[in-house]
């Protein structure tokens, strides 16, 4: 598809020499001066377009060429309009070009020229001028002459202006357009347009009897025209009906954003006027008496109601079926915003929405349509005193479980949750309860939705769900593998000779392992934090560990864990944090063996262990039993060295009376003995073949921890000194079996000597190895002891500077600064 030819064309266009370029420009200028514009002109223009587009640095065209292109914008040949518009948009405008152009072609502005004006608008005033010009064109309608294609595109252009600069529309413009929109939406012709020959924009009724419009299923239409009506050809106002509906939602959102009845304190006067008007009661009295905005709202309601009813018909073509879904989404959104603006509409709209929900809730192919319906229930369900549970059970219970592989549904559902997070947390208890379901989106397609979960995950962390959530996050790659297996086992036949991945699919289908997989696939939280036979499950899934989807999922888990831990410290008390700590210790050996996964998770655990203990040092005493158990297992040094190192660090640092008065000498001694035994074991014998040497950092951390503990309980000092000197003696021979690198060995031994020397002075050791908080967190001027010297120094500098300044300047006395 992408060939070398294309690549070289781009290269040529970028690297064209200046001289050649100027020659090309002059040739083109000559061509454009001629009356007729044939193939050569078109080709040259196309080439110019490529040259201008190919580079990100803007090319400046010679003014003459620029002017010729401007005049081409009003050429009757559309291709010339298109090409000149494209080139002009990519080049710099001439000074005052916009004004010149605007003054010239008044009602002959075509869509491509308007595109240039839009793209090169410099300020709100330019847009206002364009807008006024367009709307004037709406009023003075009859334009004989060439088909300009502009009239239908007036609305898209206005919508574009609205998006970027809503202030550009004056109150009069808004009123005028509101009236026009009402006309087009509600009162467009209900007969088919003229024959197909003229391209559909300008028609007149021919001598034939006009046929009525039809619905999508072929029946004759009995009501007003909408986007879901068909005919052989279309009249102009029917086209405007389509464009009006296409921009209706945005229009309502922009101009009617003040809720009915209250005067919001905006600084836009026109909005305030609008809000005063909407206080006028809008019951179903004759809608002709209503001001334009209210009338538009009423018509929008009628239009959307009709669309909802039309969408029930079976469309003859598939694309029309898709359009019906899109129309439903749009209609429900418009109805929602109408109700937000004017709550009195809720009672009229709700039955319609409720019926729609009833109709569609059992059909999963309409899932994306039900999301705006859910939004409606969330916004107005309370007001209408309706029970919304069925909606949430469907949206949060069924959709993620069965449609997790639909990227668009995932995107829209997660966006819905993100935007309404506060409301959802308040009113939808199913949200937290169904977090395992929501995580299925993440397990299936992590790269696409990780961004959304970065925003949503903190809200899922509550004191009730913290532990289960932690387990679920750690098992996310397993969930990913299980979803794949579920998918494959549905596709593969029962017996598939020579099929790949047979073992895991078989395991998935095996009834005795069913429970394990069902636990992972659960939709609701609360059944239990994790399962007993987790190790079995991990083994069954081990062959899935390098499947691409599983690997992608595994790569996102560390980020999520960090977010989890950041959130959990805010909601958990010390007991719960202690349990979280235990889970990290326990799970450090129960992880899916995906490439790099275990290493990364261990790294996260280590970091978070330090954080947790720094915040709550008493945790170490609370969980001392389990921590010591972990630290005493020599095998942990080898296969979990990162976590092990940090556990030892934490024990050495925080097992002290200064952090928690429950820390007894007995506890310190027992900890000491545990660590001593491990250090002795790993440094006295060669490691088992296949495990490799212990990390030097683990050894140094053990030594430091032992020294710290000894400094708190002085009768342990002789034991440490003995151990450290033994180490030195053993290594004096040169190389040792437990350390391969000479430099590392040097560092270990140096540390040993330093600690030995330090411990010879117990008092000094105590303060060096257990620095009080105020030493490690300097308070500078807040500390009365440290403040005085600082103040004196500052004063001295000030007075010296002042003195030297006074020496150099003549007379004027400067005020003394007082401190």
């Amino acid at each position: 598809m992408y060939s070398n030819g294309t690549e070289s064309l781009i290269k040529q266009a970028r690297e064209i020499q200046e001289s050649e370029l100027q020659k090309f420009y002059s040739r083109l200028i000559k061509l454009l001066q001629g009356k007729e514009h044939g193939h050569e002109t078109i080709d040259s223009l196309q080439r110019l377009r490529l040259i201008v587009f190919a580079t990100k640095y803007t090319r400046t065209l010679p003014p003459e060429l620029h002017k010729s292109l401007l005049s081409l914008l009003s050429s009757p040949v559309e291709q010339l309009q298109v090409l000149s518009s494209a080139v002009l948009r990519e080049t710099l405008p001439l000074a005052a070009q916009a004004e010149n152009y605007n003054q010239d072609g008044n009602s002959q502005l075509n869509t491509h020229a308007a595109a240039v004006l839009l793209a090169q608008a410099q300020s709100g005033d330019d847009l206002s001028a364009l807008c006024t010009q367009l709307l004037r064109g709406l009023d003075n309608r009859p334009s004989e002459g060439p088909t300009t294609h502009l009239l239908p595109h007036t609305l898209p252009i206005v919508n574009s202006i609205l998006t970027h600069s809503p202030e550009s529309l004056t109150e009069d413009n808004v009123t005028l357009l509101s009236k026009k929109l009402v006309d087009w939406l509600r009162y467009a012709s209900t007969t088919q347009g003229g024959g197909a020959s003229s391209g559909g924009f300008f028609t007149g009724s021919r001598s034939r009897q006009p046929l009525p419009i039809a619905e999508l299923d072929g029946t004759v239409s009995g009501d007003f025209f909408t986007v879901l009506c068909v005919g052989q050809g279309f009249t102009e106002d029917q086209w405007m009906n389509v464009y009006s509906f296409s921009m209706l939602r945005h229009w309502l959102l922009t101009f009617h954003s003040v809720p009915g009845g209250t005067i919001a304190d905006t600084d836009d006067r026109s909005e305030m006027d609008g809000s005063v008007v909407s206080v006028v009661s809008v019951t179903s009295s004759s809608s002709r008496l209503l001001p334009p905005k209210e009338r538009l709202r009423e018509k929008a309601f009628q239009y959307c109601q009709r669309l909802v009813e039309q969408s029930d018909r079976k469309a003859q073509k598939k694309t029309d079926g898709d359009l019906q879904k899109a129309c439903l989404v749009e209609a429900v959104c418009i109805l929602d915003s109408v109700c937000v603006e004017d709550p009195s509409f809720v009672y009229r709209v709700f039955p319609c929405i409720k019926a729609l929900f009833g109709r569609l809730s059992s059909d999963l192919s309409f899932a994306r349509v039900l999301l705006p319906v859910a939004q409606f229930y969330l916004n107005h369900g309370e007001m209408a005193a309706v029970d919304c549970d069925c909606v949430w059970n469907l949206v949060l219970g069924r959709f993620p479980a069965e449609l997790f592989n639909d990227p668009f549904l995932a995107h829209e559902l997660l966006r819905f949750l993100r935007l309404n997070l506060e409301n959802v947390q308040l009113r939808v208890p199913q949200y937290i309860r169904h977090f395992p379901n929501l995580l299925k989106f993440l397990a299936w397609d992590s790269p696409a939705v990780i961004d959304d979960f970065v925003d949503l995950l903190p809200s899922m962390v509550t004191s009730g769900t913290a532990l289960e959530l932690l387990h679920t996050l750690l098992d996310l790659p397993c969930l990913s593998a299980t979803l794949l297996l579920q998918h494959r086992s549905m596709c593969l036949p029962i017996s598939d000779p020579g099929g790949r991945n047979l073992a895991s699919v078989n395991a998935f289908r095996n009834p005795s392992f069913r429970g394990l997989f069902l636990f992972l696939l659960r939709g609701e939280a609360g059944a239990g934090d994790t399962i007993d036979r987790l190790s079995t499950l991990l083994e069954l899934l081990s062959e899935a560990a390098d499947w691409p989807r599983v690997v992608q999922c595994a790569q996102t888990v560390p980020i999520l864990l960090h977010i989890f831990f950041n959130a959990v410290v805010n909601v958990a008390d010390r007991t719960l944090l202690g349990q979280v700590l235990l889970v990290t210790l326990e799970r450090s050996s129960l992880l899916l063996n995906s490439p790099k996964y275990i290493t990364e998770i261990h790294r996260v655990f280590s970091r978070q262990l330090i954080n947790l203990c720094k915040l709550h040092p008493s945790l170490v005493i609370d969980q001392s039993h389990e921590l010591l158990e972990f630290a005493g297992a020599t095998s942990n040094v080898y296969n979990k060295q990162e976590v092990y190192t940090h556990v030892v660090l934490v024990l050495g640092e925080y097992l002290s009376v200064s952090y928690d008065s429950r820390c007894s000498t007995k506890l310190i001694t027992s900890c000491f003995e545990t660590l001593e035994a491990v250090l002795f074991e790993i440094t006295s014998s060669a490691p088992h073949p296949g495990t490799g040497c212990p990390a030097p950092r683990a050894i140094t951390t053990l030594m430091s921890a032992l020294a710290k503990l000894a400094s708190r309980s002085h009768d342990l000092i002789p034991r440490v000194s003995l151990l450290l000197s033994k180490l030195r003696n053993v290594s004096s021979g040169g190389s040792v079996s437990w350390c391969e690198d000479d430099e590392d060995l040097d560092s270990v031994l140096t540390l040993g000597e330093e600690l030995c020397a330090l411990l010879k002075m117990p008092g000094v050791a105590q303060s060096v190895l257990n620095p009080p908080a105020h030493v490690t967190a300097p308070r500078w001027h807040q500390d009365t002891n440290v403040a005085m010297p600082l103040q004196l120094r500052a004063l001295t500098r000030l007075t010296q500077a002042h003195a030297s300044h006074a020496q150099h300047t003549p007379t004027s006395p400067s005020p003394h600064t007082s401190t």
Partner: protein
Amino acid sequence: MVVAFVIHTVCPIGALAPGESRVLYSRVFGPDEALFQGGQRLQLNAEERRLLSVEKLAVVARQVQSAVSLHREASGHPPVETLPGEEALALQDADTGVLRLRCGDPYLQEVSALWLAVNCLSFVILCEPHENLLLAEGTLRNLARHCLEHLHMLGQGSEILLKSSRVDVLLSRLLPHGQLVFLNHRFAQSLEKDMAAYMHK
């Protein structure tokens, strides 16, 4: 409203670094975002603004390319080579997805990037997040189908560069000034007849 429509490569190109993408067609709709939404913080001249706009599109292309390659890697389906004449099949097999681009990364407002990847090219519609994504998806598919057919993109030619005005006309009908339009099949047919004369020049 649609912010931009882009056609770019998603296959590795020799002349570029891995992960870089070549933008073959781009159309930004409406006035310049930097002027009207930047709060006048950035005082840039027209040339700098265009450069910024082009760079933003390049960022989008790169993001979409990585999303496409991750998607293809995860689904285990490598892109299938389809021959000219098999446009319908190519479209049916196409990968689609949607990507969220946060505020500031690279546009000042949040945008959703809907992408449709056929072999080594991808079509992207960048729209505001509250936009009707069902409609946008349908429009994207329609645009892709027309581009594949009228620009013979499954072949080895370079019409995408040499006849890019056809895409302009396509956009002016199906996505006028970035407006997503609710077109039923009759309206669409009417527009197609309108364009047919143009496309065969």
